């Protein structure tokens, strides 16, 4: 194995003891930079490590996301945890096992190939020749770099820990008590809240600090520029003090641009167009052109638990417990913002409520650090529901225009995809500058860093803008919008959601125009065998259409690099558009935990259905108009579809990231089902009755 082929996390964290440590009394600890976000990664990572080491799952403890112990794996994002983090863990553990097998072979005077590793014991089967990891641990140093040496395979082949639906390791605690960073307590801990400005760019021009300090239980008022926080002995006192602060503060607020329909709003912003993909020739032999514009609005993360962090400022270091996606990145950002060396900040990941991208987790961690430094006591700081909806970054709005040329034989010969959007990633630590909300508000303020999107092939706004189909001419133009009237960053699947929605809607529009079955049109243009299998598997599982329903499909390979996913949706239209049933077929290569994969795909489908049917960030000239759940409804239990997920087995193929693969296909499947059922082509999300009616005209 040559170095450039190594998975990234292992390349940058080559020391084996960064990944594995044998503790006394028969326990092994493994360390991962990929953190639990509700997606089950800690369970999957433990399965991979136990399989490779040859230990029982109960013998293994896993530490994930800790700047004092775990490898720096940037962010837990982009469906990369199994692909990159899991591959790194697997290689590191296999090499550790090999080192121990060779040490055992030397001591036992047998050939390494005769040894089997089970439950942490390395021995010759059927004899009493054996050594445990723990007996050998003092003689085998892991303070060495990964070498890529040939590994001794498990004598009995795979142990079967990978590929089984191991139950989630974190769930028993979560179903009945303290389990989240929100639930931690420390002696002397105070509770804090931040009074966020009423709108972007608002300046705090007057504050009656005395009245705020006099509020019951208040132990600290922290003001710097336009940043204002209060800490109180009791949580409800902090909440009450926030209301006092609201009355004691006077702001000057610049107006927001008026909200208009998504396409119009985005087209009104200055654009920097660039051709990001080109294949074939400009001239096509098309005889018929299909052209349409699609859009999605700004979307909110809207996690059920508001962002939260616990911080302790000590003499020489700040310790922060956070549900961040990138503990090391956050550490660097907080150190930079406070003018401290990285070594003076420690970030320990603790689970939070569901994370679907760059939400308020990092911002609240910095808020807590600032308040902890000011008040000298441990600080638990939680955002309010309104702050969570108004101040966390939104998923960027998008407009997509597709022009497709079809020849006389019914083949799509030309495809031009244009998109208008902002960046889809403004994560702290990714570029230069500081991406922490409070740092932009404090005195002196640091500038909001300029936006730069992720490039193809993974892409940001242009993620999945290149169709997977074999069109001889393809062109993608990204009209990048550097101005961001709303704060935006990464939301699950980035641009793939709108791009796949548009591409797969257009495929059905063309199929309808040509009078061809939508599945047949897709297969006609798709050489990728794995993609074809997934499409056919979904159609097969869906069976015959039920009377009174509309049915549609959507398909993509996430990023054109990760999991394949085909979705069939069945809808009914009565008082509103209701998604009744969704069938998905997924090829994610070797599946570490099939039930975990199903759970992720099911969740992705429901979340995408919610985006598609209901969601849209609203604002007025006065600011973001999201004050509570009543302003941002999401899919409820009485609207939940039945879901069936079919896994197309590819155990011989490398594992592919799957956590985001269902989003775009689901949106397209719903829109296509609406067309099938009602004959209405709705191209602008969300598909509310109002918009469906507008599309009828």
């Amino acid at each position, binding site marked *: 194995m040559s170095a450039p082929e190594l998975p990234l996390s292992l390349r940058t964290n080559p020391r084996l003891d960064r990944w594995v440590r044998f503790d006394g009394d028969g326990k092994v600890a493994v360390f991962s930079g990929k953190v639990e976000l509700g997606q089950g990664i800690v369970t999957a990572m433990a399965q991979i490590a136990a399989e490779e080491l040859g230990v029982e799952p109960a013998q293994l403890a896993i530490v994930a996301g800790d700047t004092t112990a775990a490898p720096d794996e940037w962010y837990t994002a982009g469906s990369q945890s199994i692909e990159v983090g899991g591959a790194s863990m697997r290689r590191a553990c296999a090499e550790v096992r090999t080192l121990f097998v060779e040490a055992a072979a030397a001591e036992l005077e047998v050939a390494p190939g005769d040894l089997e590793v089970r439950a942490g014991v390395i021995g010759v089967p059927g004899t009493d020749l054996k050594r445990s990891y723990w007996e050998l641990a003092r003689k085998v140093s892991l303070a060495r770099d990964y070498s890529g040496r040939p590994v001794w395979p498990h004598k009995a082949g795979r142990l079967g820990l990978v590929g089984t639906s191991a139950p989630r390791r974190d769930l*028993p605690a979560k*179903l*009945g008590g303290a389990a989240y960073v929100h639930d931690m307590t420390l002696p002397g801990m105070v509770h804090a809240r931040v009074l966020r400005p009423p709108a972007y760019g608002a300046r705090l021009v007057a504050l009656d600090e005395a009245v705020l300090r006099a509020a019951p239980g208040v132990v600290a008022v922290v003001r710097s520029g336009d940043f204002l926080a209060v800490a109180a002995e009791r949580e409800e006192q902090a*909440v009450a003090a926030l209301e006092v602060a609201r009355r004691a503060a006077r702001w000057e607020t610049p107006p927001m641009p008026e909200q208009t329909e998504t396409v119009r709003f985005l087209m009104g912003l200055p654009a920097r167009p660039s051709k990001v993909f080109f294949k074939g020739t400009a001239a096509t032999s098309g005889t018929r052109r299909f052209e349409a514009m699609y859009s999605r609005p700004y979307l909110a993360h809207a996690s059920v*638990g508001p962002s939260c962090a616990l911080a302790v400022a000590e003499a020489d270091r700040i310790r922060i417990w956070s549900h961040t996606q990138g503990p090391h990145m956050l550490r660097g950002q907080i150190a930079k913002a406070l003018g401290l060396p990285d070594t003076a900040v420690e970030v320990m990941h603790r689970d939070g409520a569901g994370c679907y991208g760059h939400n308020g987790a990092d911002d609240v961690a910095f808020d807590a650090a600032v308040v902890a430094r000011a008040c000298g006591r441990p600080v638990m700081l939680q955002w309010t529901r309104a702050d969570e909806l108004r101040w966390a970054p939104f998923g960027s709005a998008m407009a997509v225009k597709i022009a497709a040329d079809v020849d006389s034989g019914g083949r799509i010969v030309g495809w031009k995809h244009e998109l208008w959007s902002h960046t889809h990633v403004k994560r702290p630590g990714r570029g230069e500058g500081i991406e922490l909300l409070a740092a932009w508000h404090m005195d002196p303020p640091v500038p909001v860093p300029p936006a730069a999107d992720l490039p193809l092939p993974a892409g940001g706004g242009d993620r999945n803008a290149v169709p997977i189909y074999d069109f001889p001419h393809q062109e993608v133009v990204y009209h990048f919008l550097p101005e961001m009237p709303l704060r935006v960053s990464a939301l699950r699947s980035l641009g793939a959601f709108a791009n796949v929605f548009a591409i797969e809607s257009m495929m059905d529009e063309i199929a309808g125009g040509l009078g061809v079955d939508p599945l047949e049109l897709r297969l006609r243009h798709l050489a990728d065998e794995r993609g074809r299998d997934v499409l056919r598997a979904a159609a097969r599982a869906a069976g015959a259409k039920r009377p009174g329903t509309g049915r549609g499909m959507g398909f993509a390979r996430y990023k054109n690099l990760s999991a394949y996913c085909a979705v069939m949706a069945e809808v009914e239209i009565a008082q509103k558009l209701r998604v009744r049933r969704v069938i998905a077929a997924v090829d994610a290569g070797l599946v570490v935990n099939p039930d975990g994969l199903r759970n992720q795909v099911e969740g992705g489908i429901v979340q995408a259905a919610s985006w598609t049917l209901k969601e849209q960030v609203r604002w007025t000239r006065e600011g973001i108009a999201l004050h509570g759940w009543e302003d941002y409804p999401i899919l409820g239990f*009485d609207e939940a579809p039945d879901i069936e997920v079919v896994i197309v087995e590819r155990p011989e193929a490398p594992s592919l990231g799957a956590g985001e693969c269902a989003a775009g296909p689901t949106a397209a499947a719903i829109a296509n089902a609406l067309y099938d059922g009602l004959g209405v082509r709705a191209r602008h999300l969300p598909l509310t009755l109002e918009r469906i009616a507008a599309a009828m005209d």
Partner: protein
Amino acid sequence: MSESFTLRVNGRTRVVKAERSVPLVYVLRNDLGLKGTRLGCGTGHCGACTVLYDGNAVQSCDTPLWAAQGHEITTIEGLGSAERPHPLQRAFLEEQAAQCGYCIDGIIVSAAALLTRKARPTRDEIAAALGRHLCRCGTHARILRAIERAAREMAR
């Protein structure tokens, strides 16, 4: 002004000192250490803080402390624990009916109230009973299945 309140929580008598109007969720979490009652919105819209109030599901962020006095309060911890799970907790584990899990404890509490009222609810009745709960991870289908499973097992 702080006052003393005598509460019945999970079958035990507990005395707490706090303002009478304090939402119960803060008292449960911070005074009594019952962290399974989660703070989600604080305005009675998401259901994460649901507890039983004389057997009925109520949102503890919407329930002032004074109103809890003289009533039987049950939190998720009063239903069962990891060691001795309630049939609902067991069913949720068997169905792996959670992603982040933040909304789940409140949902289990609501489901417990429902199953006391009606041993074998239909799927529509379960969905209606969860009308004041939100799940953002999209675990809806598993949650509904887990409640049906618990109902089956409790009816045995």
